[in-house]
């Protein structure tokens, strides 16, 4: 109940943000020295034809009016046509989104697992001789961004060891079941373990590359907040009651220290979601990242616009979920 109320409240604030974002996106992309009308026509079109197209696309009207027109169409699910692919932009994004979400989720699982485990390990090492070594290691790990991990993995596993596939989402020749677009889910629904396996193998390298890059900040925040928590009176009081150290860590300290970590993980997910773009490009993973980069190279405005909005929507939804979870885990925020 509390969770639902909080989610509702958070989503209510997300809607205005989405409006502002769509407005900014619209304005930013209209400043471009590119004429979408000219690009949408065959190269041999006459000036009059282009002019007609401009009128048809509403490009001769003032900017605010264009925005209202665009918004009205977007509300009906019409995001315009891709100039490059000559297809419905909304459909293109709908096809690409599940792959990216699947990748980001898998990477987040990797990042959380490594981050929380590593954070606990760093915390256990506090005050020991290994501590500075481990800390320098995390600093160095933080210096490897996701696309370097991706390239290194290709080099090591793909080229040097030739152990893992590193392009696409499936082995060549396999067909997407195409139920929800989420391969792991679809292959189970379709009862195809071979596809499931292939999808998992293809997901492994990109997800680990992405996850590795975003794990170190989680490690550090968990370690720092565990250390802060151990300075609290209630930890000492629990010890004075004779509670064992293991129980103090798991039941008393971790439950408090996870809260700041959770906030960070929410922010991290936004960054990670963006980071997936590079990883997708490097692994030729069909998803939003590749769609976006293609669109940017071809100045495919309708696509850029929808992809930008889609990224924004996913980030806002994830942030709302994290906020809700935070509220569930932190009784101090609940009404008295």
């Amino acid at each position: 109940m509390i969770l639902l109320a909080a989610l509702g409240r958070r989503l209510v604030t997300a809607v205005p943000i989405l409006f502002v974002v769509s407005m900014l996106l619209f304005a930013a992309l209209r400043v471009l020295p590119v004429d979408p009308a000219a690009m949408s026509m065959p190269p041999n079109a006459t000036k009059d034809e282009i002019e007609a197209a401009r009128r048809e696309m509403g490009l001769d009207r003032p900017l605010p009016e264009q925005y209202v027109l665009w918004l009205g169409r977007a509300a009906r699910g019409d995001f315009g046509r891709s100039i490059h692919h000559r297809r419905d932009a909304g459909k293109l994004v709908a096809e690409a989104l599940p792959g990216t979400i699947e990748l980001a989720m898998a990477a987040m699982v990797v990042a959380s697992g490594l981050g929380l485990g590593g954070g606990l390990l760093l915390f256990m090492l506090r005050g020991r001789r290994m501590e500075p070594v481990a800390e320098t290691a995390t600093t160095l790990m933080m210096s490897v961004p996701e696309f370097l991990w991706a390239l290194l993995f290709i080099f090591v596993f793909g080229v040097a060891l030739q152990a893992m596939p590193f392009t696409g989402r499936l082995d060549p020749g396999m067909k997407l079941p195409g139920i929800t677009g989420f391969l792991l889910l679809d292959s189970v629904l379709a009862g195809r373990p071979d596809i499931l396996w292939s999808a998992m193998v293809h997901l492994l390298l990109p997800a680990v590359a992405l996850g590795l890059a975003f794990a170190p900040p989680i490690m550090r925040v968990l370690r720092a907040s565990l250390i802060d928590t151990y300075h609290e009176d209630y930890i000492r009081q629990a010890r004075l009651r004779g509670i064992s150290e293991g129980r103090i860590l798991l039941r008393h300290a971790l439950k408090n220290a996870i809260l700041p970590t959770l906030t960070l993980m929410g922010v991290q997910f936004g960054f990670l979601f963006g980071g997936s773009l590079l990883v997708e490009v490097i692994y030729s993973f069909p998803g939003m990242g590749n769609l976006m980069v293609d669109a940017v190279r071809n100045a495919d405005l309708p696509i850029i616009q929808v992809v930008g909005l889609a990224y924004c929507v996913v980030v806002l939804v994830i942030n709302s979920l994290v906020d809700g979870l935070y509220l569930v885990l932190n009784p101090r925020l609940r009404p008295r």
Partner: protein
Amino acid sequence: MMPRWMRSARVLAGLGLAALMLVCAMAAPWLAPHDPDEQDLLAMLLPAAWQAGGDETHLLGTDGLGRDVLSRLLYGARVAMTVAVTASFGAALAGAITAYVAGYLGGWMDWLIGRAIDVWMSFPPVILSLILMTGLGTGARNVVLAIVLVDWTRFCRVLRAEVIVVTQRDYVTAARLAGFSHLRTVLKEIVPATMPLLVTLLTLEMGIAVVVEAILSFVGLGVKSDQIAWGQMIADGREAVYQAPWNLLAPVLAIFVAVAGFNLLGDGLRRSLDVRTLEGRE
């Protein structure tokens, strides 16, 4: 006695690596064994000198057009360092000003800046910078501008929280009661207290700027195509990874070393300049 930050191994290591990068960037014309744009179509995709088939005059081999990889690497440092330094100072300036305004004045200014950050944070930074680069067009100056426009929020978010904490300290109230103006109170009481944090963030941002510049160049939306950038070298080197792996590995390592230098420096500074120990709060 030396100040504490000078005695930290981390700070010294970070300073060393960052200085190395800066020297490479500044002295590239003297250090580079070849003209980085000189093509040698007879010596294309040479592996590194120590590998089979390597050539001693090309220490890290050549690329697909027969250009010397080491020379290109050194020249690539110029773009990387220029962007890193200017973009991070720009983002720091923009973020700090908004943070001081929001954190000290509070009220509707704080609300407005807070909502602006919300809008910014709803975009993954990479996506936002790509969109900005689409609008701005390629070129080093635009890369800097895009980084500033994206990353001012990193400064503003963190610094604003710190400014609020410092503003609540009684010595800030005392300065106002002594008769100082708002501007002087901010400049003399709050800015010095938040300076260590700002310096730390600035250092870390330099590493981020190196990465962003590489990413943008990698997808072909960074500097102009006639400039040499590490990101572009990676994109080119990827094609030749079987014949001349150092085409890919060299820029990857360069980025890692540069970012590690800034990160070590930032981490070291954060520890040794820790405001909290000075102000007795933990």
